């Protein structure tokens, strides 16, 4: 009984602990925000891993979908709950902010999933490096489009999300952002695990390994590609929405190819198609990014150098295509990663 629910128990205790620590301000704001970015990075790397690892495509425009999610949920939140220069008075009572927040984030995810069609539909005919180009172009198109919409700030960016966060705190006095990030991170990993471990989702792996065989063995490859791309970009949108509310400010420049590159690095550092690898490498990468912050500009020389060295020694990433439970079999008693 205990074993069966142990992982749920650990998560609930962990979440509770996090809430308590954040509430009592035992952690400073900086550490807390690093933890929240870690959550966002986990969402991004696991969701990109679905396409780049499990499906074997090479998508390098993940930040574009993140951007869609960030903007949609930011605008929605600001429009509904705050007094804003562009949108005027709040549509709903700010007291509802807390209950509406998950739906706002999810709406960002849905919008990003629809943007994912921009890549999913070409993927029916195009594969490999040609599809990689389409993802890069999609990234540029999204950013460029937002830069050209003046009413939401264009390239100057969009803000006002802090007010929504504060409105949530006014309803119930809890550190809501860490809680939501925690919940959505778990939600994201949970969805991906359930997807890839179902027979339905195993079609993704089949497409990766032999698309022709998959199609002839009755896998509807176009449908699976659509679902996978939409799921991946949708989750990236959720990550983007959370990112926007953590910082309280978004601008298109922060979702450029460099951001996509960061996510790519996390995926390949963790190991292709390894869910626990993606989580692990997101955690390591976030910590590394923060630990090397004092180096300032040299940080961006040291980090790539470290990654190159890691790849020379482990040319299949930290975990290869294995899961934690393959390496430590005792974990299987508590949780199977696949």
């Amino acid at each position, binding site marked *: 009984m205990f074993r069966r629910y142990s992982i749920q128990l650990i998560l609930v205790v962990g979440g509770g602990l996090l809430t308590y620590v954040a509430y009592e301000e035992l952690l400073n704001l900086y550490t807390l925000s690093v933890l929240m970015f870690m959550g966002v990075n986990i969402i991004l790397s696991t969701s990109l891993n679905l396409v780049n690892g499990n499906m074997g495509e090479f998508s390098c425009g993940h930040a574009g979908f993140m951007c869609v999610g960030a903007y949609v949920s930011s605008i929605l939140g600001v429009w509904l709950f705050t007094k804003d220069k562009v949108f005027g008075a709040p549509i709903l009572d700010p007291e509802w902010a807390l209950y509406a927040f998950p739906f706002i984030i999810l709406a960002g995810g849905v919008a990003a999933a629809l943007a994912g069609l921009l890549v999913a539909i070409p993927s029916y005919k195009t594969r490999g490096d040609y599809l990689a180009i389409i993802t890069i172009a999609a990234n540029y198109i999204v950013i460029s489009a937002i830069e050209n919409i003046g009413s939401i700030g264009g390239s100057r960016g969009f803000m006002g999300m802090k007010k929504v966060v504060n409105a949530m705190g006014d309803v119930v006095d809890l550190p809501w952002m860490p809680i939501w990030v925690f919940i959505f991170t778990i939600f994201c990993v949970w969805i991906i695990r359930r*997807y890839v471990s179902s*027979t339905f989702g195993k079609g993704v792996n089949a497409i990766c390994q032999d698309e022709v065989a*998959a199609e*002839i063995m*009755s*896998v*509807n490859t176009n449908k699976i590609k659509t679902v996978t791309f939409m799921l991946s970009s949708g989750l990236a949108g959720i990550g983007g929405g959370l990112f926007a509310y953590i910082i309280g400010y978004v601008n298109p420049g922060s979702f450029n190819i460099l951001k996509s590159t960061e996510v790519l690095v996390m995926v390949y550092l963790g190991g292709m198609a390894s869910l626990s690898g993606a989580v692990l490498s997101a955690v390591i990468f976030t910590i590394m990014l923060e630990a090397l912050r004092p180096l300032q500009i040299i940080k961006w020389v040291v980090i790539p150098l470290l990654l190159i060295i890691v790849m020379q020694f482990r040319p299949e990433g930290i975990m290869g295509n294995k899961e934690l439970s393959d390496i430590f079999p005792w974990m299987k008693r508590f949780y199977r990663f696949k």
Partner: protein
Amino acid sequence: MNNSNLKPDVQPVLEIRNLIQQFGGLKAVSDFNVCLEPGGLIGLIGPNGAGKTTVFNLVSGFYQPTSGEILINGVNTAGLKPHQVTGLGVARTFQNIRLWNDMSVLDNIRVAQHGKLPYGFFHAIARSGRYQSCERQIEEDARELLEIFVLQDFADEFPKNLPYGTQRKLEIARALSSKPSLLLLDEPAAGLNSADVKELIRLIRWIHEQFDVTIWMIEHHMDVMMELCTYIKVIDFGETIAEGVPVEIRNHPAVITAYLGDDNI
């Protein structure tokens, strides 16, 4: 197998009428006709490059024919995608083994039932009752099939680590897991040694008896064909040059010419 000896009340498993496939200027298949009634074990032979695999690719929907009709269990496959054709009850193996090498043997069998899944994405996420019972059923069927093929010990192994003969066997098992009414075997004996070939003959005969399935196979090993098939079609340069029972084919002058060349040249 000919239209002449087909009983009118039996729905043919596969009917091909005037099939033509053209690649640019090359006529890979020309005016191909066949009618397979349920329960047959039919052979398709011909020299290399005769268009045998092209016929299979056309039947499994991988190519769209230039002209002609393919009916599977009475349904015209024109415009259908390969997975839809498979859904009509066709399964096949490949000349060069095409297993999913980085998925366990069990998963290889499971994914082949993808077309019959009664649940979609949201059921998979929610782990609904339908999902649970369906997954249980799939796993049960898959394990049962592995046991029938004596592959149960390899269930968690990756196909790439299996010996070649076992991979061939697994590919046939995977094709059967979608419970097809027509099984296309594309050179199942290619690359096997003589002991393996003997076992394969036994296996195919046994599958033909055990599973309610029509088998149509391409093979270069003549002894396999002569021993197994009840009817053989011979094509060369896309044209049907002979058809009949094995004894007829063995002594057919056109077949001998196609394989060994013309004496008069």
